[in-house]
């Protein structure tokens, strides 16, 4: 059980909070690049770390992420006009009285002022950088003086034909979602049917090890950027099957691979304290994704999901329809929880904990040591940042160049030693998988 004040510290990420300050040390995913596909695209409302913003791509193609509300009367710039006239300077013009802003939040025109007025130069909205790396538009919401180098996670640095990213809205606090990514002991239970049936999972020898040994052993080791959580199960005589999950602080996890299937993982980003974005990627280091693989991802297989109609990022299965619970499928063993799809199996249970789970009432077991250690590291990093100004793990792009691993090792081998190279993202080198 966690003290209530520690739970508060870990789960609150708004401006001025300790965990909010920690998140503001990192580049974090803000939205998918496909949401602003071309110059002049309609603006998009974005809420991150409890701050409401507008993302837009001006007619020159530059990205901007600025305060959602016009400095004049406080109306939402979502109604604004992303001007595309060739004779006009690029910018987003407020729909109410025509104030116009560039991608840095600088006001460039106040129509009610005289032609030669310089008043607009004195008006500037808060803005954050918005940069495309891979399929994602990333932002950094911290002190501009401390802006770190851009992220180098492998899924967003491989050629675009080798990677696919989706996102979904999850209606609970970011931490209980992240903890599901660190805790791989639930896979043999909650996702057991998916290991047999899902086109992006099935057919791996590793699945057999998973399903044949429901009581895995855990080994948790600190890494430069966070943790490595090794889970071992019995394999052939004198060998263990290891699945190694890296967690890079604060919110990046990778799932160990299965056979030659794409490797997947998540970035768990707070929207506010009761909602988060789950950015979900699948990629391969050395080959293009096939059409069938991408089609499977687009239709919600693997760790992706289907959406409510209308171009939303809200899952089709959500709390308003009880996640389309199918008791018959549960009875037949087609799903363990009655919920279809690996992503929504996780999300449904994590949302069922409540918007912010009360960790003072939980009762962990030693198998949860990865979660316990991750919380400790987050608290420690947030405290050291606030009290001593120490840059937390995971800011350095070198910490991003990690991989998950699935492998079979002799029983007396350390996974850390045996997989030292496999755990590093190396261009042109295939993932280590079983």
């Amino acid at each position, binding site marked *: *059980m*966690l003290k209530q004040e520690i739970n508060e510290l870990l789960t609150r990420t708004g401006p001025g909070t300790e965990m909010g300050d920690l998140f503001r040390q990192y580049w974090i995913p803000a939205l998918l690049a496909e949401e602003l596909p071309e110059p002049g695209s309609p603006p998009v409302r974005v809420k991150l770390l409890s701050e409401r913003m507008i993302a837009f791509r001006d007619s020159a193609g530059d990205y901007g992420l600025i305060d959602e509300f016009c400095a004049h009367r406080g109306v939402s710039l979502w109604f604004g006009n992303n001007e595309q006239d060739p004779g006009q300077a690029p910018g987003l013009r407020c729909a109410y009285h025509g104030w116009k802003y560039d991608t840095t939040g600088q006001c460039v025109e106040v129509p009610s002022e005289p032609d030669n007025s310089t008043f607009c130069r004195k008006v500037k909205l808060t803005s954050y950088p918005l940069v495309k790396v891979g399929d994602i538009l990333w932002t950094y919401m911290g002190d501009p003086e401390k802006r770190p180098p851009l992220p180098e996670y492998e899924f967003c640095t491989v050629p675009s034909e080798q990677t696919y990213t989706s996102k979904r809205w999850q*209606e*609970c606090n970011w931490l209980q979602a992240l903890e599901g990514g660190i805790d791989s002991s639930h896979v043999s239970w909650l996702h057991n049917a998916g290991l047999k049936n899902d086109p992006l999972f099935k057919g791996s020898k590793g699945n057999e090890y998973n399903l044949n040994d429901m009581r895995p*052993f*855990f*080994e*948790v*080791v*600190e*890494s430069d950027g966070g943790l490595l959580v090794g889970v071992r199960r019995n394999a052939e005589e004198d060998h263990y099957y290891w699945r190694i999950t890296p967690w890079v602080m604060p919110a990046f996890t990778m799932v160990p691979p299965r056979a030659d299937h794409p490797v997947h993982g998540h970035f768990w980003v707070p929207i506010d304290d*009761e909602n988060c974005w789950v950015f979900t990627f699948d990629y391969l280091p050395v080959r293009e994704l096939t059409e069938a693989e991408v089609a499977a991802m687009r239709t919600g297989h693997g760790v992706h999901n289907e959406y*409510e*109609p209308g171009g939303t990022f809200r899952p*089709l299965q959500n*709390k*308003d*329809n*009880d996640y*389309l*619970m*199918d*008791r018959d499928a549960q009875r037949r063993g087609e799903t363990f929880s009655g919920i279809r799809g690996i992503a929504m199996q996780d999300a449904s249970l994590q*949302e*069922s*904990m*409540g*918007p912010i789970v*009360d960790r*003072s*009432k939980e*009762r*962990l*077991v*030693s*198998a*949860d*040591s990865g979660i*316990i*250690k991750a*919380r*400790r590291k987050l608290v*420690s990093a947030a405290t050291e940042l606030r009290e001593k100004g120490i840059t937390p793990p995971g800011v350095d792009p070198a910490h991003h160049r990690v991989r998950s691993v699935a492998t079979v090792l002799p*029983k*007396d081998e*350390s996974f*850390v*030693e045996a997989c030292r190279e496999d755990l590093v993202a190396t261009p042109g080198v295939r993932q280590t998988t079983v």
Partner: protein
Amino acid sequence: MTVTAPSYLRPTLLNSCAWAATAKEAAFRIDKPPAYVRTSRVFALDPGAADVVRDLARRPWHDTRFIPAFDADTLADELRDADFAMMIATADDGAAAAYAIGHACWERGITTAGIVLDPSGAGRRRAATEAVTALRPHARVLLVTEDRQDIVEILGEVGA
């Protein structure tokens, strides 16, 4: 007028009296914590770990006993009624004790955890040492850490 629900809206729990997961519903959770008792034993595997175990013993715990020096003759008594055993190592010379404790726990269905404390901060290097190798077969969970507070946290979290 008949209202037809969209095809994707298919509530199946019409007999439930609460919707899942809303903030409002979360407020109605029963406030009394679930009953939960752990009977724990914490073993030191080497002299350095003995100091750690003695320190830990000074804190308030529930039903936890701390054993700074392994003694094969009293092991069975120490494990009586236990359901969780933690083994702490700071050096490589506790393999025999780890084996004895681990084997005894396995026979009795006692969950085990191994902590390799590495104050030097070389966690990843330490992870390959004999201490880890010795503990691996016997510890359901193995944590290599430089921070002894992790031990306090884990014991606290598991209800020791």
